[in-house]
């Protein structure tokens, strides 16, 4: 698939530059842990549930250590000593701490724990469950749906209404259901517990909600005889915890991008890069596809002028994912159809950009976002914007095809909005079935020229990011014209430099398992 005559050397150069950028952040990541990483580890040990005050037990343990001891040694250090001493399951340990029956600070001054191996028996059930879930997913995917996969969101705020919407959408032809999160959740430094019915613009990501939706989708998947994929957000302050929950409940995809959190949620960059790494290792191990958030840049910045920032960021995200041992086939790099419809030849430029992404990341299940910024209250016009987007998605062979809603500028989707979106996409997919095979672009034309110039701008941008380092680049507002400081933003207080005795047995086990795999 080479329609754009892109220079492979430029692509290679850009990739190499991105690798240097990511590697330099990786050095920092490897030296640090966060409260969320430690809580994720707790969850892998089977610690779950909330106390009488609705505080999740993983938080209870981690906060306990943070407040009373030295978290830089990692929960594994403390818990392994406690297990050695008390022979209780980690969950029990957590409950004891909650009831002030146990104080882990007693192990603080002890030497590097000789009992880390004791944790393995408690990790095994979760690891096995994840392996089983992965196998189930792979079996189901033997009958894959035709790409682009039609992806719709549900966002009622109430998991039970979400289920109704999701089931209806699946029956109408959706391949992927994303349960959007309530507006506030990404800034919560804990994961709420249980089934929930109160969210704004989305529904809380909880393990129970994941499970409820998974059951419903498995059911409709059986009825429809095709996989129905489930998506949520391993994003925000609890990236890696949610990655664990998603792995356990067989989610298929996770929105997962530190850059999104930094730019759009004002999450501290140190914190979220560390969280992201562990979350990606977990997703890589679990066979979960990630979705990155570059598309969002174009909702803030101009989609024509800043197209190269999306590409540069995709290159970086690819390297971050590779560093987390992720296969390219799990990298749902994000981009979007956001050029102002008032711009002449907007369709040509969109085709150029979409095809470019496809050619540069041939193995990636690209996530292609519909027009949102230039959608207006004129829902009839919106239908056309979505149709042009759908044409582009189909004609450039995108993988994950987020369907645009005619009411994008108005409200989170009604059931009928989603149905209309699915009909739009289905009609276009059929009408343009073999279109991309039939057409060639003029080698000296504007489509080819546009793609080439975006690539070369991205390449230049990467060089300059490499020179200053990613942290500084973000301080300069390189993406989405948004400046963020290295030491401000939410969640910095949860970052810890690893102590010499620090161990993360989950990371170690998963990396080892994947070593043969990648």
């Amino acid at each position, binding site marked *: 698939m080479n329609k754009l005559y892109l220079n492979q050397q430029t692509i290679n150069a850009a990739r190499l530059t991105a690798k240097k950028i990511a590697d330099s952040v990786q050095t920092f990541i490897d030296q640090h842990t966060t409260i969320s990483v430690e809580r994720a580890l707790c969850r892998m040990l089977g610690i779950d549930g909330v106390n009488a005050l609705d505080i999740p037990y993983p938080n209870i343990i981690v906060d306990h250590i943070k407040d009373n001891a030295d978290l830089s040694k990692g929960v594994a250090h403390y818990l392994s000593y406690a297990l050695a001493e008390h022979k209780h399951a980690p969950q029990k340990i957590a409950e004891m701490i909650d009831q002030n029956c146990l104080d882990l600070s007693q192990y603080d001054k002890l030497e590097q724990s000789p009992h880390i191996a004791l944790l393995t028996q408690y990790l095994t059930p979760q690891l096995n469950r994840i392996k089983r879930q992965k196998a189930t997913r792979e079996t189901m995917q033997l009958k894959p749906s035709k790409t682009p996969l039609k992806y719709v969101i549900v*966002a*009622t705020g109430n998991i039970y209404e979400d289920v109704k*919407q999701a089931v209806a959408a699946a029956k109408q032809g959706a391949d992927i259901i994303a349960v959007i999160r309530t507006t506030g959740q990404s800034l919560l430094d804990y994961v709420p517990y249980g089934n929930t019915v109160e969210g704004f613009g989305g529904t809380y990501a909880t393990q129970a909600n994941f499970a409820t939706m998974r059951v419903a989708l498995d059911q409709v998947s059986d009825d429809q005889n095709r996989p129905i994929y489930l998506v949520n957000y391993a994003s925000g302050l609890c990236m890696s915890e949610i990655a664990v929950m998603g792995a356990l409940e067989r989610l298929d995809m996770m929105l997962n991008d530190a850059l999104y959190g930094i730019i759009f949620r004002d999450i501290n960059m140190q914190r979220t890069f560390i969280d992201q790494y562990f979350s990606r290792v977990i997703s890589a191990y679990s066979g979960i596809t990630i979705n990155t958030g570059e598309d969002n840049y174009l909702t803030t910045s101009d989609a024509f002028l800043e197209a190269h920032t999306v590409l540069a960021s995709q290159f970086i995200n690819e390297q971050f994912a590779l560093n987390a041992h992720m296969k390219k086939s799990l990298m749902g790099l994000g981009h979007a159809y956001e050029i102002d419809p008032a711009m002449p030849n907007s369709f040509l430029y969109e085709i150029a950009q979409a095809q470019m992404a496809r050619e540069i990341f041939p193995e990636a299940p690209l996530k292609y976002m519909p027009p949102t910024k230039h959608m207006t*209250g004129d829902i009839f016009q919106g239908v056309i914007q979505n149709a042009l987007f759908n044409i582009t998605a189909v004609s450039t062979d995108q993988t994950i095809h987020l369907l645009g809603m005619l009411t994008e*500028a*108005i*409200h989170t989707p*009604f*059931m009928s909005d989603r149905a209309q979106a699915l009909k739009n996409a289905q009609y276009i997919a059929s009408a343009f079935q073999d279109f991309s095979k039939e057409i060639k672009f003029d080698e000296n034309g504007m489509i080819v020229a546009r793609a080439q110039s975006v690539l070369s701008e991205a390449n230049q941008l990467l060089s300059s990011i490499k020179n200053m380092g990613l942290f500084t680049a973000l301080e300069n507002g390189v993406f989405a014209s948004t400046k963020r400081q290295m030491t401000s933003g939410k969640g910095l207080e949860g970052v810890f430099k690893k102590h010499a005795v620090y161990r993360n047995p989950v990371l170690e086990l998963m990396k080892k398992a994947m070593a043969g795999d990648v």
Partner: protein
Amino acid sequence: MKQLIRPYGDTLNDGKIQLSFTLPIACNKKGEASAKALVESLGIRDVSVVHSEALDDAFSYYIIYGTVANPIDIENITVETVDQAVMSKDAIEAYIKEKFDKELVFIGASTGTDAHTVGIDAIMNMKGFNGHYGLERYQGIKAINLGSQVDNETLLKQALHHHADVILISQTVTQKNIHIKNLTEFIELLEAENLRERFIVIIGGPRIDHSLAKELGFDAGFGPKNYAYDVASFAVEALYFKQKYDV
């Protein structure tokens, strides 16, 4: 028991509804407020004018979302439908063979100035529609399709001439209710000639339904998504009933 319902956006009984219309006034803040007031006058709350646009100096267009304030009770909603069980082509043919000793004559036309034939052809011609054969292919039925633009008098004359049992009328153009005018005239013509009881008279078209047909004095009415067997099922049973009790 009452069965109260409201429209559904994404939560039961949220009452969400979309509207659009033009007002013959300028597009400005007052126009928007007027559009909002109009929608509120319909018993809709939380009215949100999501789009407004000038169509001309004194015409403005609005797209609106809102919430229907009052639920309706659907418990007592009954639907006027043709309540014959629908038979297959084979079953209809067998039925005719069993119950009648002659070929049944169906005569049809698109009447008045209406030139749309695709609908009546779908019911009457060999080929039928969407893979369902038309009456012409039914054994025991003689189907005579007079085509379009047939005036009411001609249709009646031809029906008598061919000893028709069933008359089929198609009406597609409905602007300014021209179809109602045209259909009413046919019934009046039959009654004036004292021939109403002589035929089973069935109407059809994109804006026709059974209740409209009954209201206008016809035996049945069929809208979109109806095929020859729907019409024939009704007609043969009605004819059988007629021959049994009427004569």
